[in-house]
């Protein structure tokens, strides 16, 4: 009796648990889950929140600096194929290095296996998505840009907040807040704004299975290539500084690169 029950139990368990696996093997995989891991470095040195707060990085201009806070937004991950429409994932992810959250992002939408001519995303929000009060979760993170003339009377959201301290030309420790937003010239008539989000191209890839992309940000690049950033002149109140925003956009072109890809 006992044995019979045990046998019955075991075999039921065995059958039901095996069921799905068998099916899985029979059905051919046609779509892949994608994952984007965001990692950060200062040239050859890895940067995590554990390396924050101490003045240890040297920028191209020769200023020593620390990082105390780093968060930035990415959006609209796009998969491009030959002869077919782009697959655009209308998503966003606030990468928060300070609190080590959202360092990894997996869009819900699965991507068909196949050859892609490019995988890309937007650093920041392009104008189409950069809409005042559109994202309560970002408001809750105090990520919004105030709707005032100085910032183009348009609201929207930050692209990046990079903050820390540096040693200035007078050899004193002082602070910087490298905040990147849609460039706005609130003093011009009419007020001008410019979409300074950046399309980051990770390049061509053949997706054969679930896939993980490492996206690297070299923070040093924000201060060089092609504009040699001098923190002594531009260290704070940069959101309303149209020229500074354009330079951020210029330097931002080479900040991201593709690291390892696993699938």
């Amino acid at each position, binding site marked *: 009796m006992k044995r019979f029950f045990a046998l019955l139990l075991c075999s039921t368990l065995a059958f039901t648990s095996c069921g799905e696996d068998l099916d899985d093997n029979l059905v051919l995989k046609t779509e892949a889950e994608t994952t984007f891991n965001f990692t950060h470095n200062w040239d050859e040195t890895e940067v995590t929140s554990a390396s924050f707060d101490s003045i240890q990085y040297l920028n191209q201009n020769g200023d020593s600096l620390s990082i105390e806070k780093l968060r930035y937004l990415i959006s609209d991950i796009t998969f491009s194929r030959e002869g077919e429409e782009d697959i655009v994932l209308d998503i966003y992810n606030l990468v928060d290095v300070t609190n080590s959250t959202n360092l990894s992002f997996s869009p819900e939408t699965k991507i068909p296996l196949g050859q892609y001519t490019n995988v890309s995303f937007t650093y920041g929000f392009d104008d189409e998505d950069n809409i005042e009060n559109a994202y309560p979760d970002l408001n809750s993170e105090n990520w919004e840009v105030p709707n005032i003339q100085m910032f183009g009377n348009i609201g929207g959201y930050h692209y990046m907040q990079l903050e820390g*301290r540096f040693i200035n030309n007078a050899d004193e420790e002082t*602070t910087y807040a490298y905040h990147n937003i849609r460039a706005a010239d609130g003093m011009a008539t009419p007020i001008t704004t410019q979409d300074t989000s950046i399309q980051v191209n990770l390049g061509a890839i053949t997706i054969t299975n679930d896939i993980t992309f490492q996206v690297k940000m070299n923070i040093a690049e924000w201060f060089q290539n092609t504009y040699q950033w001098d923190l002594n002149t531009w260290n704070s*109140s940069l959101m*309303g500084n149209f020229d500074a925003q354009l330079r951020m956009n210029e330097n931002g072109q080479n900040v991201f690169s593709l690291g390892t890809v696993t699938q």
Partner: protein
Amino acid sequence: MKKGFIYLLLIISVSACSKSDSPETETYEPTPLPLSIPQLFSDRIISPVIPNNNPQTVEGVALGKKLFFDTKLSGDETMACASCHSPQSAFTNNTPTSEGIDGVFGTRNSMPLFNLAWNYRERFTWDGKQLSIERQALEPVENPIEMHSDWTDVINKLQSDSEYPELFRLAFKTSLITKELTTKAIAQFERTLISANSRFDRYTLGQETLTSQELNGLDVFLREDKGDCFHCHGTPSNPLWTDNIFHNNGLDTNVTDLGLGGVTGDSNDNGKFKSPSLRNLAYTAPYMHDGRFETLDQVIEFYSTGLQNSTTIDVLMKNIDNGGVQLSTQDKADLKAFLLSLSDPSFLTNPDFQE
């Protein structure tokens, strides 16, 4: 014999599942009372944090309110939570620091209590040492310079009271009182303390106009080349008016109270305190974690010319060498007018919050 035993087990397990065998089981359930979320909050920010193991109920909130105002929670029965958190002062008090039952003053300014359920990171008190509203409520009761009691005594008093056991049964389906249930009830009441009806709120909803002075004050608050207050205290997009994050806003060069640093043990956190909400400032003087400023004018003067440099001063504090943001007399007056438009008189008189 063996077989008989197995059958017995089977019978037991089957009967354990059937309801009809246990007529004692209480069928009563407390009445759910979802938080009434103001429209501005549901439009602009994400949902409040309510722990799964402590849902809001009519009976729980009522019990929590009674406990909040009850002096039985203190050693000599002279002090309630409300003694330092009075509804007439937006649930704080008006002394720089607070006197406990033994006449000893603490070192920190009491905090106003509102919109606590929207503190998403759930770090409470000035230095963030309390990790939930429930857990926070455990502390003042036994704090020797606050209510100076003992939870065992408090529970005994409540258990032998003529009303409490029944109120606990209604709220939690058991008349056996514990400190966990006591603090759960208090936390339910605290979560109902919602303030969202200031003139500025109604302006945001298009129901009110502001004076040009208040509007200019908002501009001063938001502009990078003027107050630049928004990175810590928020913008009209976030009706909380705080980031609930810890910063050193430059009060002292040599910090005596380590603040967050005392909790994390990291000296980079020394002198950091939670940004307070700027709602209801009209009722919450004095200001800062130690209540050092009696008036808003003093606070604004501090940000304008009084900043003290230190190694942990927040990078967002500007022009530190010159003492701060250097506002003109007019801008200071306008900034103050704007700040006061964030005060919500209906919060003080809400009948649900009175003893």
